[in-house]
């Protein structure tokens, strides 16, 4: 159930991280050039931002409910260790809500530089908020800062647990770049569709060019950051890395299989084998030893095919997006203008939904890859779950409610796109 809520919440988080900065960039263009196109665009995007933020507030609140509702043993045992992160996140959320109110309702009402300034805290708090949540997730993957004693966490040092955690930094950067990637491609895909339908005026061209540029530059960066993350996973969660690849036995000069399916006997069928690549990528040494799934007993292994599938989806889409980004930059330099080719625009239109798929796949990778642990090596997921009955009923209700919310959101955004600006 929490998985569902996260899947609903994460794309909104991306918009929370990246959209305020993009809107502010457009407003800054307006302030510098005085060109009303930028103001119209920034103002319209502000409305979208507010709508998405409102839905994000809800799903975020629900998540904090669910932490208690679904995982009482998890919060009960470790709340003291990681709760601080959420407390600070709550404050960030709060500041974000305050300034989003000022910014959204301050258009044409506050002096313009003050209005611009009121947007800056939104960008900062969007960052700190996600920073805190990722700090908690980093801790779940690499728990430190406490000692387990008779099933209770003692000698708790929350600061060390959350911030002096070697697992935290790559997750943060990876997520943060993903925010810009997803926001950029999703927004760009909307305007790519508009362009394919013949809306080639300057307003629509600007609305396509800005997010596309940001996403196109962020996509290759994400490949590098992702590679860095995988190297950290290799040293800190070798079992997870083994599941990414489906590496059954500890192997010297381990290969990578592209696609394929992991068999219970430890072979990978229907995959394209690239020798020595895993060792090279993970340890920068083609003959390095990579720990396999056999390093831990069977009951401590994650569901290999689920993790592999999610991982390969993320990497595959990520690579395609990076290629698209490179193509865009090359075309821009050779032609000196926005690419017009329908194939290119079609690819951008697809990139939006695909980037969301990659985002969710990436999150499945890290969460499923950590199974069966909720706190890596310390607490099993099955031990953390609530004893209250009625979970399926609640789950069904939540599915219906979220579907309704997303339909409502889609409807509202369509309406907003058409609504004239100015006035109320």
């Amino acid at each position, binding site marked *: 159930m929490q998985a569902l809520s996260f899947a609903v919440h994460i794309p909104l988080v991306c918009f929370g991280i990246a959209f305020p900065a993009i809107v502010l960039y457009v407003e800054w*263009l*307006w302030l510098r*050039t*005085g060109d*009303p196109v*930028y*103001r119209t665009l920034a103002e319209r995007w502000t409305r979208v931002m507010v709508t998405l933020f409102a*839905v994000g*507030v809800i*799903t*975020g*609140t629900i998540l904090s*409910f669910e*932490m*208690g*509702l679904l995982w*009482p043993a998890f*919060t*009960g*045992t470790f*709340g003291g260790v990681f*709760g*601080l992160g*959420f*407390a*600070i996140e*709550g*404050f960030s*959320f*709060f500041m974000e*809500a*305050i*300034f989003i*109110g*000022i910014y959204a309702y301050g258009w044409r*009402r506050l*002096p313009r530089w003050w209005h611009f300034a009121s947007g800056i805290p939104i960008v900062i708090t969007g960052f700190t908020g996600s920073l805190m949540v990722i700090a908690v997730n980093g801790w779940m993957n690499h728990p430190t800062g406490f000692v387990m004693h008779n099933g209770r966490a*003692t000698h*708790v040092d929350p600061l060390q647990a959350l911030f002096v955690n*070697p697992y935290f*930094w790559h997750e943060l950067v990876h997520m943060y770049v993903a925010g810009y990637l997803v926001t950029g491609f999703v927004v760009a895909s909307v305007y790519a569709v508009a362009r394919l339908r013949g809306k080639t005026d300057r307003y629509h*061209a*600007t609305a396509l*060019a800005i997010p596309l*540029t940001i996403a196109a530059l962020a996509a290759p960066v994400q490949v*590098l950051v992702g590679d*860095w993350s995988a190297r950290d996973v290799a040293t800190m969660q070798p079992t997870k890395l083994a599941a990414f690849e489906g590496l059954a036995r500890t192997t010297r000069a381990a290969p990578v299989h592209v696609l394929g399916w992991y068999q219970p006997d430890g072979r990978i069928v229907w995959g394209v084998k690239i020798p020595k690549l895993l060792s090279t990528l993970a340890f920068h040494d083609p003959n390095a030893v990579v720990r396999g799934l056999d390093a831990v007993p069977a009951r401590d292994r994650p569901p290999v095919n689920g993790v592999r599938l999610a991982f390969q989806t993320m990497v595959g889409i990520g690579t395609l997006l990076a290629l698209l980004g490179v193509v865009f*930059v090359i075309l*821009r330099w050779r032609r000196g203008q*926005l690419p017009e080719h329908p194939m290119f625009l079609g690819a951008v239109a697809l990139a939006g939904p695909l980037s969301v798929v990659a985002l969710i796949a990436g999150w499945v990778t890290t969460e499923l890859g950590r199974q069966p642990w909720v706190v890596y090596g310390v607490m099993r997921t099955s031990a953390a779950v*609530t*004893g*209250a009955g*009625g979970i399926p009923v609640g789950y069904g*209700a939540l599915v219906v*409610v979220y579907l309704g919310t997303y339909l409502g959101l889609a409807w*509202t955004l369509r*309406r*907003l796109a058409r*609504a004239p600006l100015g006035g109320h």
Partner: protein
Amino acid sequence: MHLDVWPLAFVLAGLVLYVVLGGADFGAGFWQLFAGRGAKADAIRDHAHDSMAPVWEANHVWLVFVLTVTWTAYPEALASIASTLAVPLFIAAIGIIFRGATYAMRGGATARREQLLVDSVFGVSSILTPFALGAAVGGIASLRVPTGNASGDLLTSWFNATGITIGILAVGVSAYLAAIYLTADAQRHGQAELVELFRRRALGAGVVTGAAAAASIVVLRFDAHRLFDRLLLGSPVAAVAVSAVAGLATLALVAGRRYELARYAAPVAVAAIVVGWGLAQRPLMLRDLTVSQAAASRSTLIAVIVAVVGGGVLLFPSLALLFRLVLGGRLAHGAVAEEAPERVERPSRTTLAFRAAVAFAIAGVGLLTVAEAPWAHGLGVAALFGFVVAGVVAVDPAGLARRS
């Protein structure tokens, strides 16, 4: 005060602010639901919506604050509460989803009929949510929540006389607070007709809520002995008295058309009763768990206190700014529109930015991918950040759009 009580004080303060601010939000939904039909009803609905629109998100984060501080500082207590009281909390969660969703959707609803539908969903969930949260509080206050994972009764822990009474009281208080604020807002904007409409609602809600509060004392007498005994026969009776006086004073102020004062008197009544509850339940947090048993380790408590105080230093000035702008009418419609800046042509600096982007990219790959040391990775990330920024300048999307 002992260290392990501080976070509880923060939680109760957060609860008061949630009732006072978030409650008013729920109440606005209540009035939207019962506005009826016709032009007058539309005016009521619009006024209720517009007054709350800039602040409702901030008002509701108080709940997140209460939850996160509780689970950090008293993890075991929150786990027990959340699992035993799963049903009302789930109802509240659903209500919150619908409220937020309809709030977001109202911006898109242009036709009256659509707005009516959106407002109705909003109104129903605005009643359901405070009722469910109040019922959950009733479960805690009548000590029906034992320690442990879902070890209390999932239904009777909240669906009982105390829970239902406090739930109804929560709805009543919300409606009352909202009516007072909306009257004051209407007066500030000089809408005389709306002032009268909401003044009548405030008086009606005030009388009904006052009666419900008095009736709840009888309920507590029979259903929650410990709370009743300690609340009314011990020292916390002073808090109850303060609350009663403040409540009556608010009513008198509304009757005497002193709405601005009423706006500040009403929270006193709420704060006093929450403080009284806290004092009466002391030292218990749950039926079989004292506050000090529930508290997390010393270092966590210190970290929470530092975080709350530090956060508060940032938060309260921001919140004050928001409310000053809202109450000052700076964010209302028709406030002054500013002049557009003058149009200037700026030359783009793409060549320089292009070179910088290439340099940053090379540095980033070298430091993040080739190098092994953690400090190099940090620099590498910074370089890649520089690459994206320089790259955006170099690509010059705005210029690109102008030329196409």
